[in-house]
């Protein structure tokens, strides 16, 4: 049986797709057969970030409608043979997704995948609802600003009451906080909420902090999930997150400002 992970946020543009691509690749690189599904029907871009946009033949909606088999639609990653991508349709509208259809696809995938990562669209409408409905675990992607935190809180409430687990009175979805686009400098200037602020408002287990990093843009422009860039801070942060999720105990990084070399050390205040 696969474990289904939803990457969700409520608010748009906070880094869900970046995160989905990174952790799916991370899990696959650890040897777990992983599928990552783009639920953002009409706005597909997971395939771009994973660099397989030119190999898309069939998509998620085709599979749901029985126009293609899963095997036909799944794209095998060229860098890691444990990773498969199920792209979203760019031409359909959101109504193409149904609870029954999504349930059937997830059930079939569950048979031979270890992890299924669901990249949720923004908002709290149908697409976001379906992406989280069958989840076992939720990665709640949040930026350190008030509106993003509020939307995450909202999403957490919806997951606690409207997921399949909630409806069937089963153990609730396991929720993890991923704080992304974090900039210690801006926190210090009071322009952003700190890790502690966000954790206090959401009271959620922190899986990791991903720093604001140029490497993310570079990676997505070249279709390489940032986790494969092991020199980059963001790549390392995602690596940590995957390891922690798999049960490893790793200290948190990227929360405090970088030491600024000898000059910075000499003049550091206190």
């Amino acid at each position, binding site marked *: 049986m696969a474990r289904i992970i939803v990457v969700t946020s409520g608010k748009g543009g906070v880094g869900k797709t970046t995160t989905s691509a990174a952790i799916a690749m991370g899990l696959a690189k650890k040897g777990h057969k992983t599928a990552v599904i783009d639920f953002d029907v009409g706005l597909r871009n997971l395939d771009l970030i994973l660099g397989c946009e030119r190999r898309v033949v069939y998509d998620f909606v085709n599979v749901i409608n029985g126009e293609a088999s899963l095997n036909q639609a799944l794209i095998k990653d060229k860098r890691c043979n444990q990773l498969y991508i199920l792209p979203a349709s760019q031409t359909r509208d959101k109504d193409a997704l149904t609870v029954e259809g999504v349930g059937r696809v997830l059930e079939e995938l569950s048979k031979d995948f270890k992890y299924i990562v669901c990249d949720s669209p923004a908002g709290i409408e149908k697409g976001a609802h379906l992406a989280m409905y069958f989840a*076992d675990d939720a990665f709640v992607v949040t930026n350190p600003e008030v509106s993003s935190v509020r939307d995450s809180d*909202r999403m957490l409430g919806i997951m*606690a009451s409207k997921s399949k687990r909630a409806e069937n009175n089963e153990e609730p979805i396991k929720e993890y906080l991923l704080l992304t686009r974090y900039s210690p400098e801006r926190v210090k200037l009071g322009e952003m909420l700190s890790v502690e602020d966000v954790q206090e408002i959401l009271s959620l287990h922190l899986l990791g902090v991903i720093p604001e990093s140029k490497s993310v843009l570079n990676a997505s422009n070249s279709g390489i999930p940032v986790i494969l860039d092991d020199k980059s801070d963001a790549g390392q942060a995602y690596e940590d997150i995957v390891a922690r999720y*798999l049960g490893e105990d790793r200290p948190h990084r990227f929360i405090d400002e970088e030491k600024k070399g000898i000059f910075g050390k000499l003049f550091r205040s206190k």
Partner: protein
Amino acid sequence: MSKESQIHPYHRPDLEFKSSSLSVPVLVLGTNDLSVIEQQLLLKIKQAPDFFRYSPLIIDLQELNKLDLNLDLTDVIAQLRKQDLLPIGIRGGTQEQNQAALKLGIPKMSAQSATASPQAKPVQKLPLEPEPEPEPVKNEAEATVTRVITQPVRSGQRIYSHGDLIVLAQVSAGAEIMAEGNIHVYNTLRGRALAGVQGDTEARIFCSDLQAELISIAGNYKISEDLDSSVRNKPVQIYLNELALIIKAL
């Protein structure tokens, strides 16, 4: 690989607090005469032995105290237990009675006011004595349900209690909690809290960290902007005094 695939991040927790709302019968005492209590209990139980056997029970002393009748709680509780009834709380007691009960491991539930509420569920209760001044309608409508919430109340969620509401987790900004009776939040209150929503002016709000967007008792409200810095971020109780909302640090 095989070793890795065994590592699983999800463990069933050893302990878990889940939210629930219970419906517990309330025993309203109208006499302090132990032998009368015993007799009446036996009679009642005979009518529905399966219902009463090992039933949890809340003891209501409000009527008794209105009549200024004294009562030895220890004896009453012993009597109830002898009849296989399991008292789990008292309400409407004096401070002394509350303390006596606590010594016996029985906590205080906050007293319901007798305000009639049309939406209240029918009550299960055992009037032992005819009411001093019979007001059957009032008592039929008395709410007996306390809701206990142990999970965070998130933005966009609404919780309603026909009786008191106890929240053990935080209440987020954008969340709304409402009760016909009192509200207790043993955590940070950031959302909206409305007590006495059916008009009970005796209802109160208690919370351990006041950061609310709005607080209201029986329709008398204050918004965040009106909260004085002397009570913000503090444990407080909120009540009505002659239709003025009073916020007092605890």
